[in-house]
């Protein structure tokens, strides 16, 4: 039967290699990666560090985008609910912190963080309760409206600060312990620059590095939590709902409840991101939370590969970091972005780093196609039928090798 003609694996990708490693090796590698990420602003590596801007500031933005992409991925990637108003949750998180620490009360940033999370989650449930009964495109339109409603309210409600916004927002609490020097590469070789240091852990005005560390910590925590929840009944219920809502319901999945949960958890992460942003910026106004931001967030998820937490992380880096790195081409930014999206949609519609299963499925399709082509070739039709597989990068000498 067909199991005998199972083709052997062609390429061993990074992913397989990771999988083949022993568990402690994987953990060690991830810890090393995390440490490297923490050290990035201190290392200040040339080429990677964008010229002319504060590297820490860029990294902070990337980390906040990563957080948002992870949150949005729960809603869009796992549960398959197209949410075009995600910026609303980001804004609600930021404004909750703004209101509680500056506008109407004088809480500390740390005390306002849980409040921001709870209020954002509640707003997620409030938005989801009536709207999750509609599906597909309709949901996208309703959520689009939500984002705009939030923004317009921020502008028009005086008690929310109105158009001028809120300033004097509290910063995260500082615990000065020790100083860490940055590296200076200006001479071509790394030199320890003792004049440029970051204090661990002081959240000040000038040095953004500690904010980046805080945001990165949240990214790591959310990644770990995401992994656990995804690999459980909850994650499966989301995916089943995305695949076929009616069939899922008939298999005992309370789909409405799980969609609402996806909304609430997505909002949860968005609220954290907003709170971080407000704490770092110290000043927020409605102009920050525009529709364009929602679209950028969606792009991060889609470009990276929705449904894969590493993919959306990569997407966030692409969307938030590349424009900063190539600031010199600022005029061309939108054009390049547009072209890149079109190219991506044509050649890699699943995103840069799609979920493992999608990759495997595609590989299998390629293999089957290669087998079929070789069958035709054996039947004497000649090589002129081989126009398909070349396009997807199968090395020609391996095309017929599947039977071996």
């Amino acid at each position, binding site marked *: 039967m067909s199991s005998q003609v199972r083709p052997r694996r062609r390429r061993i990708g990074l992913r397989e290699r990771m999988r083949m490693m022993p568990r402690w090796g994987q953990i060690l590698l991830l810890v090393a990666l995390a440490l490297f990420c923490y050290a990035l602003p201190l290392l200040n590596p040339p080429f990677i560090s964008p010229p002319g801007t504060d590297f820490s500031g860029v990294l902070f933005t990337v980390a906040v985008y990563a957080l948002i992409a992870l949150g949005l991925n729960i809603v869009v990637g796992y549960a398959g609910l197209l949410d075009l108003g995600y910026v609303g949750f980001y804004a609600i998180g930021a404004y909750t912190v703004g209101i509680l620490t500056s506008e109407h009360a004088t809480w500390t940033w740390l005390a306002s963080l849980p409040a921001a999370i709870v209020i954002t989650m509640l707003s997620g449930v409030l938005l989801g309760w009536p709207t999750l009964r509609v599906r597909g495109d309709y949901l996208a339109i309703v959520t689009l409206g939500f984002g705009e409603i939030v923004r317009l309210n921020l502008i028009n409600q005086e008690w929310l600060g109105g158009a001028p916004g809120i300033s004097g927002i509290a910063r995260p609490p500082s615990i000065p312990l020790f100083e860490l020097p940055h590296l200076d590469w200006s001479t071509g070789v790394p030199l320890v620059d003792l004049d440029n240091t970051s204090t661990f852990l002081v959240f000040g005005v000038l040095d953004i590095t500690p904010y980046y560390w805080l945001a990165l910590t949240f990214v790591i925590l959310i990644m770990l*939590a995401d992994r656990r929840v995804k690999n*459980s*009944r909850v994650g499966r219920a989301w*995916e089943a709902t995305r695949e076929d809502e009616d069939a899922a319901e*008939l298999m005992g999945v309370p789909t409405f409840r799980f969609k609402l*949960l996806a909304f609430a958890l997505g909002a949860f992460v968005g609220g954290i991101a907003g709170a971080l942003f407000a704490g770092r910026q110290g000043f927020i106004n409605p102009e920050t939370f525009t529709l364009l931001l929602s679209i950028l967030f969606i792009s991060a998820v889609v470009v990276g590969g929705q449904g894969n937490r590493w993919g959306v992380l990569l997407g966030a880096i692409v969307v938030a970091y590349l424009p900063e790195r190539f600031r010199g081409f600022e005029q061309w930014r939108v054009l390049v972005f547009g072209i890149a999206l079109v190219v991506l949609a044509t050649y890699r519609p699943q995103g840069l780093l799609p979920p493992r*299963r999608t990759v495997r499925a595609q590989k*299998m399709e390629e293999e089957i196609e290669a087998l079929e082509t070789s069958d035709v070739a054996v039947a004497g039709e000649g090589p002129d039928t081989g126009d398909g597989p070349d396009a997807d990068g199968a090395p020609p000498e391996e095309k017929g090798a599947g039977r071996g």
Partner: protein
Amino acid sequence: MAETPPLDPAPAGEALLSMNEVTLRFGGVTALDAVDFHIDRGEILGLIGPNGAGKTTAFNVMTGIYQPTQGTVTFDGEVTSGMKRYRIAKRGIARTFQNIRLFKAMTAFENVMVGADAQHSTGPIAALLGLPRYRREEAAGREIAHELLDFVGVRGRADELAGNLSYGDQRRLEIARAMATRPKLLCLDEPAAGFNPSEKQALMELIRSIRDRGLTVLLIEHDMRLVMGAVDRLVVLEFGRKIADGTPAGVQNDPAVIAAYLGVDEDEVEEEVDDAS
């Protein structure tokens, strides 16, 4: 290996499911007209009838997709019409679909796990903290999934995407997914559609062994010959009405059934239907 379905101590003689004078109207169209039949515990009941007779509609009423306009459905001593679909599934009615409706982008194994989750209650917090309930339910689900994939013969393809399986494997995987919900009643909607005769034969063997595991099976099938050999009892629908109910042999000789399947002069049918009911 877990023998999946816990055989409930059935009150002897009481029907597992009964359709009580169920009528379903869509506007002016009467899809089901006072349909009344029951399914006994442990039997294989065949539901047959020409195209458009209301077989799948009857399924949809049982599983909660449609609410009956009149009449009720009782299952295992409870009125289930009006209940939410996932609750009915949890109570013990599982089904497959006439047009396969697997979760295509999930693996075969995950598909069955979703079914097994029907009886589980792990929430996000339990999963996040790795609480004992989460671990216990995951382990139970995995065991059920492996066992069922083995049972239907898709074990070797557990890690492939459901959408990439062959047609026959997809049909069998749907049965495994439905059985994983640990149902009392398994409804199969034309499970043999598109099969060749030998595959059909194998499927009937499978259905009989499902019954031997303690499940009650409701089977929709077009192929009369196939149904006759496999089922204990038959209910025949035509134009949304029940026209016959009985043993395969009895039904086979029922003039109304013969008329429905072979086509007879309309007046004659009317008479015969009246006779039969």
